[in-house]
């Protein structure tokens, strides 16, 4: 069956979003809404994502055991699903961050001479 491509499904971006979610959760447990806004604000609104695309990512991360979820009560007393980082997730975050920085440095080195 043909698979439709969702906007963030290309591998690189998918990995990036995963990393951003994990990074957000380092500060403590949060629910989906908080995570979405934290990413948006943290990037000073450069990364405009459809907030919905967060949910498949959360599902995937939970499935891999990098985050865990629990039901809690939100600031305004609503039942909400909270996510927290697991030890495996923490390790994964540092692995991904390292690799990301390598990639960025590499790309940077390639791009810099061209701009000079």
């Amino acid at each position, binding site marked *: 069956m043909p698979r439709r491509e*969702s906007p963030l499904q290309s591998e690189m971006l998918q990995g990036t979003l995963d990393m951003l979610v994990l990074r957000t959760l380092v500060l403590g447990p949060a629910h989906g809404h908080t995570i979405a806004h934290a990413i948006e604000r943290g990037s000073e609104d450069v990364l405009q994502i*459809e*907030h919905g695309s967060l949910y498949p990512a959360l*599902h995937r991360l939970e499935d891999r055991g990098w985050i865990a979820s629990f039901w809690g009560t*939100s600031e305004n007393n609503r039942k*909400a699903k909270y996510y927290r980082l697991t030890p495996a997730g923490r390790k994964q975050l540092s692995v991904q961050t390292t690799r990301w920085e390598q990639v960025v440095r590499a790309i940077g080195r390639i791009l810099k001479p061209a701009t000079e």
Partner: protein
Amino acid sequence: MSLRRFLRRAQWDRERSEEMEFYLRIETDENVGRGLPYDEARAKALRKLGNRTLIREEIYRMNTITLLDALAGDMRYGLRILARSPMFTAAALLTLAIGIGANAAVFSVVNSVLLRPLRYPKAEQLVVLHQDAPGAAGLANAADGLALSPSMYFTYAEQNRTFQALGVWIPGTANVTGLAEPEQVRTVSVSDGVLQALGVPPAAGRWLLPADQIPQASEPNSFSGRSSTVMLGYGYWRRHFGGDRSVIGRNLTVNSRPRQIVGVMPRGFRIVKIEPDLILPLAFDRGRVILAGFGFHGIGRLKPGVTIAQANADLARLLPVWMDTWSNGPNLNGRWYENWRIRPTIRPLKQQVVGNAGSVLWIVMGTIALVMLMAYANVTNLLLVRAEARQRELALRAALGAGLARIVRSLLVESVMLGLMGGALGVVVAYAGLRLLVAIGPANLPRLNEISVDLRTFGFTLMLSVLSGLFLGLAPAFRYAGPRISAALRSAGRTASVSRERHRARNVLVVAQVAIALVLLVSAGLMIRTARVLRTVEPGFTGAEHLQTVRISIPSSLIPEPQLVIRTQHDLADKLKSIPGVTSVGFASEAPMEAEPPNWDNIFPEGKTYPGDVAPLRRFENVSPGFLHTMGARLTAGREFIWTDIYGLRPMVMVSENLAREFWGAPSAAVGKRLRQASITPWQEVIGVVQDVRQNGIQEKAPEIVYWPVLMRNQFAPNGPPIAARAVTFVIRSERAGTGGFLNQVRQAVWSRNASLPLASVRTMREIYDESLATTSFTLVMLGIAGGMAMMLGLIGIYGVISYVVSQRTREIGIRVALGAEPGALRWLFVRYGLALAGAGTATGLAAAAGLTRLMKSVLFGISPVDPLTYMTVPVVLIAATVLASYLPARRAAAVDPVETLRAE
């Protein structure tokens, strides 16, 4: 992809939806906080979130096992389709249920009778010690070959190198008294080694052991000494002791002597085919055993890895040893038996147990399978018609992007579901069918009443259901899932254009059906002819339904003196004769067709010598005065015994007509001639000749028989005590035979003479006669049912095809009528079509039948497998029926109103 997630995906979906709903609320709240009106705030939140369905689908797909999901979808769709055409579904399900059910029923019979008939550990090592003796003519005809003598048993058991255990056994009856009414029970007497060879552990207590086989005293006229222990069969134990384990050690009075119960065998334990009530030790008396006494069945367990050929060679090596070790008396050389040319021909036990039941069952199985094929042809036809109607739908699905594989799969899923549902119903049919089979099955099917639907049968049914489903789905799938979308879409909905190709498939199916029906009808016809021929055979007795038989045996422990035994039997006969309505009474060692083990003797007619002094063995019966008269056997010459002959121990015999012809040319010439058993025994005078009696069953040739009197001198010791027939069957001729009141009077009459005499095998001759016909009747009934079903299915098939053709060609017919076609000519047009189909089917069927009916040879009697009458009648009947089946739709065609049909287009 884990199955757990797959099964939990509905819950996941709910949770994620809830989460997104929560997101929307917060986002909306925040937007409202920024001063937007609620509706706008909500809309903005929705935009921010994106397409919710898409997200849910994405998550759903992450959790999905695609194939399973698609299958479930196909199944739901299939169910909807099936539910939408209930008539079609009902017809198809019914056909499948009958087809699968009938096969499952027959399979479970084949399974328990042919595939696993032996319930012994490592049954493949078990063998029957069968022996041929071509030199002992007369015995060669007997299916059982030459049985073992006690001395043979000793030699074989003690000196063989190829058996783990080996023994001999003999079935019999015994009278048990002291427990309510006296009862005659079925016994098996075994030597040491029989239970050990079979290897089935006792349910309670212990086996009979070598110590039980040591005779404690001699018995007169017997190779067996006195023994004092007994084992119980499971059924007997349940019936009389309620399964009480404390019976071990108690005493049971068997043939008026106490025996200690030492053990109980488990449920279903059999010695070859016999399920005994009691198992007794043979306790051979070594001192009295001689070379002769060939009356014992041998059974053994081969050592692992030993082949039957090796075991045969081993026993053949022991035969000379046996001849030299034992003797028939002083001055008699044991090597005399070399004339018999005895040859061990060991057989697997399974072959012995299954016997010729196999051929009958395979015929039935084949028949049922053929009927199922026919039924499937009809269902396939239905599916084809329906697939045609669904062409538009299938084409539409293809046009919407469904691949070929996808459509084939959904069609197959649909038909497999049909198959499975049919199979589920089929199990119900199988249960009912088994009841029927067990009720009408012949008695020689081993363990018939134990047949049940077991796991293997379920597996078989399941497999059959799935295969049927696939098989049925393939035809429409291949035909209609093909890439002919545009053509289908364009032509659907119009009746005028029908491709010839589609007719061809249907025509082939119908021709096949007619052919199969013809084969089955010919087989059924052959069986009917066989049954009719059998009815005309003179069995050697008359008025079978008015002949009551009852078996009574008088053990030597109850009445030791032979003369007194005969006196008692004579009294019993007189008492029975005094019952109102009884016209005559007699008794004999065996009534015809009773299937008691036969007796054999060497017979030398006076004036004839045989090479090596070996005369053929002839069957003998001991008969009382009046026995043959009571049976209705005609006397062709001379006279019957009278009581004065019996008590006077006169040296007289009667012979059967065929024996008289063989020895003296004509029955009348036989009277006054003499014969004897051996050169040292006295001559006996022939006083009468009796018509031939079908002693072994109506289908077996009447054997040559010598009738001895019920009491006679011991031929080998004329001065010793005479020998009496102690176990005899009384036959009582009365119009009231078989009625409850009559049987009560019979019982009272016997017990008024001696209250410890049990009555066994209480039957009428009619029942015995029918039983000997059971195999034929069973095959006849099965083939009759199958043939009838096949004919119906074939006619329905033809009717369906012609109707369909008529409906497809309505337009053409309308035009023909409009142009002035005669109704008769129109009818002939379609009847001719039907006739062509029937003709092709009949021709194919005749060819197939000529080949297949040869397989039936063993169940046919008196006619050839290519019996001309059957082969002429059946096609005529079948073609006549087809003409009728095609005439009905043809008449409809002729009645077509041209105006209406042309307007309808």
